[in-house]
């Protein structure tokens, strides 16, 4: 009897595994079709989307070459802008919001409270609410270059980061900092050599969320940056496809493939942190 139920249970599990495997294959098909089509001549992408490249439709690396040299600035240029903006914005956000969060959690003055509640409030404000005025303000203050746009990201992205850091700082016992103070540490030493290292888990979560946001963001950079001079990868792809009557789908797919390869490598390398970080950020809504 027991043997029977056990084998029934085993069968059930096998069926579930098979079902999940099928869903899994369907799940990776879109990415797989990007790979396929990036090696096809443009005219075949629409008609033979799901077929393997044949001798007739195979394009070799020509789509990649075309995609990477398209427009006034080559792709590598856009890649560097994207990397720079993402890395600097994330670093600024982690450094400055964690400092502010520590101050808010420990000093608790009226000003701190106002800033904190404004941050929480900013999390429910959709970007469309501020996009016009924000882009005009950024223009006026000359924040419209890749070198200065991280300041805009720090401002608009502060809300979630402050919220997450304050929550974490409040869970750290005050005694540790008191001990540091007794040993003669001023606030700056206390923060950087005692508190900062303890914030690591939240820093990773915040960092992951900000990287994913900034790297993929389209609307903020397109409105803030001077797009005749500077484009990030999402802007490049949008304009590659958006502005021309006839679109080279093969080249577009090659560029899309190039732009998601770093993302997938990043994902596979830090998967554990990414999933944890995203789950931690789910409070945002």
């Amino acid at each position, binding site marked *: 009897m027991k043997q029977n139920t056990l084998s029934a249970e085993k069968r059930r599990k096998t069926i579930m595994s098979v079902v999940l495997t099928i869903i899994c294959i369907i799940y990776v098909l879109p990415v797989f079709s990007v790979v396929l089509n990036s090696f096809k001549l443009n005219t075949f992408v629409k008609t033979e989307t799901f077929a393997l490249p044949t001798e007739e439709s195979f394009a070799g690396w020509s789509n990649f070459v075309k995609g990477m040299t398209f427009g006034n600035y080559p792709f590598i240029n856009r890649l560097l802008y994207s990397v720079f903006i993402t890395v600097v914005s994330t670093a600024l956000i982690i450094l400055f919001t964690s400092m502010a969060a520590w101050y808010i959690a420990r000093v608790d003055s009226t000003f701190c409270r106002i800033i904190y509640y404004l941050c929480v409030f900013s999390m429910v404000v959709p970007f*469309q*609410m501020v996009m016009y*005025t924000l882009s005009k303000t950024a223009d006026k203050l000359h924040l419209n270059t890749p070198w200065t746009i991280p300041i805009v990201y720090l401002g608009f*992205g502060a809300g979630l980061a402050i919220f997450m850091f304050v929550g974490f700082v409040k869970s750290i016992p005050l005694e540790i900092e008191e001990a540091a103070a007794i040993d003669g540490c001023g606030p700056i030493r206390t923060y950087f050599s005692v508190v900062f290292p303890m914030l690591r888990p939240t820093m990773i979560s915040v960092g992951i969320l900000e990287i994913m946001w900034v790297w993929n963001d389209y609307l903020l950079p397109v409105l803030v940056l001077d797009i005749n001079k500077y484009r990030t990868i999402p802007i490049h792809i949008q304009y590659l496809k958006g502005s021309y009557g006839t679109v080279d789908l093969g080249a577009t797919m090659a560029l899309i493939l190039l732009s998601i390869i770093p993302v997938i490598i990043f994902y596979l390398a830090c998967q554990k942190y990414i999933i944890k970080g995203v789950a931690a950020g789910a409070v945002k809504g």
Partner: protein
Amino acid sequence: MKKKEYAGNKSLRASKRRWSWLFMGPVTAAFAIGFVWPFIQGIYLSFCKFKLISDAKFIGFGNYIKALGDQSFRHSFWFSALFAIVSLVIINILAFTVAYLLTQGLKGSNIFRTVFFMPNLIGGIVLGYIWSMIFDGILSHFGTSILLDAKYGFWGLIILIAWQQIGYMMIIYIAGLQAVPEDMLEAARIDGATKMQTLFKVTIPNVMPSITICTFLSLTNGFKLFDQNLALTAGQPFTIMPDGSTVKQTEMLALNIYNTFYGQSGASQGVAQAKAVLFFILVAGLGLLQLGFTRQKEVQQ
């Protein structure tokens, strides 16, 4: 002793306050530039007529009346609402099912989890173009395109968003499911409950907090969708109304606001800003509703 501790704390605080400019300064300045000032200015400008901010004239509620009377805006609201509700149901049912299967101790669960979550990392613009290639690859065999019929556009967006967000919601559900107390499930098993009974009477009531989070997340995400909408359909197909205005049939709220700001046909920034304020009220309202729900649940527990 107590008094001394208090005094110590006070001097600690005082020493921190001397450095407030360093700790608070950068964030406060950036936050003022990146959020506070644009927000206040945005509210003010929604009551103004303007082409440039410098020559804004106060006109009261005129922009709001125009916004609410705009057929394309009303259409985009209903389109977004329908989209948000349909995507909410589909995403949550599928995400919960997958999460449930993945917490049954199957072999390879980690690989499945990795694959299902992956689309989340791809940006909206890129996702839109990947799926536009796929849908047109299928539809071209029937002599049509995703841009030609609003129905295709709607379901195309649903499929895209489901593909992107099921993995995300799945992660939240898995965390919820793993927190269901093992002894409760054990007790149900001993009492002879079937799998289905256990699921509906024990597991689901225990993951209600996750269900609340995911429901509201997918609802607000549905309303806020922009990049995917722009890349996949850009609002096509268009209909010319009898009064000469254009209604873009698959245009959602965020895209409608964007087009009102930056569209080529007589851009009207004041009306667009009023629409943006209404959009903000809608999204913030959903946020408050969620807070209410979560609080209520906490009280009950």
